[in-house]
Every structure is written in structure tokens, then in C-alpha cells.
């Protein structure tokens, strides 16, 4: 390729870029996060289809209407689907391997993402009953990681047919 006398291409430039933003969570998410900081999980009900969303964003994405009715949810729920994770990531502090799960909280209509720990992974299954493991009371903060993960509880499995609508 090229003639030795030709100048070398410039392959690197330094263009440091930093933009700072002051985040605001919005009204519905702020209520949810303030609830989390008190160890409570708050959802919102759609006035049209009656589905309860958690975490709420102030709207029903199916009906395109505002959700205003607040609903306190249990911190117990049911696994609707799961994946066993064995790949490390520097962003995740949960020890490997763990189960990524969708959990349908009691009283909610859409499942949300979390992690299951505290049992042999081969026991994780659709229909399994679980409960939130919160960080210690004094560490509660308005952040998703205030729920460390979910752990199994000694309750009978929910039959698959009852979960199908929330898959």
C-alpha cells in the first residue's frame, strides 16, 4: 500500500465532551421512587382498561390515557418468565449465577424486571412465589436498587393458565 513518503493518516483526535443534566423523574415516577424510599411499591391503574402498571409512568401505553389512581402493591409476586445468567458484567453486583426474572406483583397487571436469589437456580420456575428482599431500612433510597432481589417464599405455585395474560 501507500508510499512511505506520504503523511500518515490522523487516526486519533482528542475531543473531550461532557454535558451535565439535572434529571427530573416526572410526576408518576417520582411518586413511585418516593414510595420505594419508604419500602412501599406503588402502581397506577388505567381508568380505561383497569390494568395496574408498575413502575408507573403516568400513562397507559395501550389506551394512551393518563393513569391517576394510585395503587399500593404487595412486595410479593409470581415469576412469569426467567433466564439463568452466567455471564459476568461489571455493571451488575449480584453474584453469578443468578436468575433474571419477570415478576408479576400481587395486584399488578404487568410483570416487571428483577433478579431471584436465595435458592438453587434449578428450582427457579414459572409460577414460583417470591418476595422482595429490600436493602436495610436505613439504606432505603429513591432508586430501583432499594430492592436487592427477590427470594422464594413457601407458598404453592400459581398455575400457568393464571399467568398467561401477563406473559
Amino acid at each position, binding site marked *: 500500500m501507500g508510499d512511505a513518503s506520504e503523511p500518515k493518516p490522523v487516526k486519533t483526535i482528542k*475531543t473531550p465532551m461532557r*454535558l451535565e443534566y439535572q434529571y427530573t423523574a*416526572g410526576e408518576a415516577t*417520582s411518586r413511585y421512587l418516593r414510595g420505594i424510599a419508604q419500602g412501599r411499591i406503588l402502581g397506577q391503574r388505567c381508568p380505561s382498561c383497569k390494568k395496574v402498571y408498575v413502575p408507573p409512568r403516568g400513562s397507559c401505553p*395501550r389506551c394512551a390515557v*393518563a393513569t391517576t389512581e394510585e395503587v399500593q402493591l404487595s412486595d410479593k409476586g409470581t415469576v412469569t418468565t426467567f433466564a439463568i445468567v452466567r455471564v459476568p458484567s461489571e455493571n451488575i453486583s449480584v453474584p453469578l449465577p443468578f436468575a433474571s426474572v419477570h415478576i408479576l406483583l400481587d395486584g399488578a397487571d404487568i410483570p416487571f424486571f428483577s433478579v431471584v436469589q436465595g435458592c438453587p437456580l434449578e428450582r427457579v420456575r414459572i409460577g414460583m412465589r417470591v418476595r422482595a428482599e429490600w436493602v436495610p431500612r436505613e439504606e432505603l433510597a429513591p432508586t430501583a436498587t432499594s430492592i436487592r432481589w427477590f427470594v422464594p417464599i413457601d407458598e404453592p405455585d400459581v398455575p400457568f393458565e393464571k399467568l398467561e395474560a401477563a406473559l
Partner: protein
Amino acid sequence: MREVAVVSFAQSRHVRREARNEVEILMPVVHEAVERSGIARPFDFTCSGSTDFLQGQPFAFVMALDAAGAWPPIAESHVEMDGAWALYEAWVKIQAGQADTALVYAFGKSSPGDLPEVLSRQLDPYVVAPLWPDAVSLAALQARAWLEKTGRSERDLAEVAARSRRSAKANPHATLAGDYEVAKLLAEPHLAAPLRRHDCPPICDGAAALVLAAGDVARRACKRPAWIRGIDHRIEPHALGARDLADSPSTRLAGVRAGVGKGGVDVAELHAPFAHQEWILREALGLGAGVDVNPSGGALSANPMMAAGLIRIGEAARRISDGAARRAVAHATSGPCLQQNLVCVLEGA
């Protein structure tokens, strides 16, 4: 060409800082526009304009879909530009016969970041953006060039600002409105000379939405649809030095192609975020002294980024629909110093 009209329009109150998220800002606005149109969802096409750089929140434009409702799955598109270009895409879709109705919306939440700095990120990323030229400084370069070329004075800028904010007193959505004395404005210090604070737009958060419909669908939806008789958009070179900053040839060409000069103009809504830009745009579009320019107060009174151009079209359409104007011109701009310009001619019959 198919007949296409704006049949309804709505906008938020544009405020300096919104605590609500983008869906919470947008949803009431989308609802209002949809209800006014009387057209039942789903629309044949939905198109939006926004940029996530403003609020520093990735995929805010996807989350914003909750305001429009994407279930059952809808035909949708997004432009990383002012919503006026989303309207253009929707208009093309209707012209192509792929839709009879379209929902167009735009939103901008600038308050979380430092807007003049954020806007510098749209410049050449290798040799210009590393120097961080902020948006106000670039506009000031243009203002200086225009003053020198035309022999006009800073008083001409202050007069635009004072008139805009006086007009905005009748606009409940405006961020800045009121009576300002030109002499007092001129006694204020410069922000980036020759521009003073009043020559620059307010930074604000807000949203807008409108509904487009074709032919008889539009006639059924609206007593007096604002028919889009011409629409065109043109861009100039990216390098600011390669352009004549004191002129806007892209606006001139878009205006000719949209047919601005084919009839009298009652109202013009010009997207001129900086005072001198209104003068440049008036000249490029050949608007005479009899044209009512920016009766809404324009971008100097409310400038929600990514929505302010769409709002010009909505404001012009509103004046057609309520009978205040028979023929109106709406203009939208994007990029630094009027880099890209869209011109739309609206008529009541």
C-alpha cells in the same frame, strides 16, 4: 397533488422548567389535538420530532409514544428535527396515498441541560464542536454580519423583541410576554454583542401536536380546514463559513417552491429564535409591511426546542381555521444560524 389540511392543533404552556416527564407533558396536548379533530384513533400514520440530547435521556422519543398510544401496533416514524419536518414526512406519506390521516407531535425538554452548550453538539464533531461554540455566540456572529450588511442598528433588533412580547400578551402558552420599552431594552448589557438577552429566545420546556387529514376527511373533521397549498424545505452547507450568514437563500428557494408569492399573505408565522433572523426571513420570503408577522409572539416569546417550528404551522393554521386569515405562511428552521428552512403556505379555501 392530494389536498391535505391541518384540521386541529394544540400546544402546552411553555415554561422554563417542567417537573413532568415527556409523556406527562405531551399527553394532554395530544388528547386536545385528537379530540378537536374528531377523528378516531388509530391514525393512519404518526410522526414526531424531538432530540434526546436536550434532556439527556436516551430513548425519550420512544417513551413519548405512550402519549400517542402504540397499541394495537401503529405505523410510526420519528425525526431528530423540529416537528415541522415530522409534518413534512406525514404530508409526503399522505401524498403517496399511504395515509389519509396523520398525528404529528413534537416536544422539547431543554431545562435539564445547558441548552447553548448542548446545541454545540450538532456542529462538525471533529474540528468545530471541540471548540464548544455555543448557540448564542453563533447567532451573534450572524447578527453582526447582518447589521453590517444592511446598515441596520441594534434598535431594529430590540423593536422585534418588544413587538413579539407585546403580541404574546394574547398568547396564553407563551413563556415571555409583556410591554417593554425599546429604550430600556437598549440600556441593558449585551449577552453576546451585538445580541442582548431580549434578542434571544427564552429557554423552555413544551410540546405541540396537530392532526393532518386529506380531502373529504379533512372537510368532515373541520369547518374550515387550513389547506397546505405548498410546502418545501432546503438546507445550506454545514460549514458556517461557507454560507452568507446575512441572507437565507434556503428560505428564499423554499418560499418560491412553496408558492409564497402566488397570492397575498395575511399572516406569517416565522421561526426566528433570534431577533435579527426575523428581518432575514422577511426579506428572503418577500413579505411586505402589510403582513402580520408572528401574531403569536413567535419564538422570542416561547421557543420549546423541536416544537417551535411545528407551532408556527399550528399557529398559522389556527388563524385560517378561525377565519382571522385567508392565506398564511409558516416557516420553521433547524440547525445553527438558520441552516435548514421549511416554508409552508396555508389557505382557507
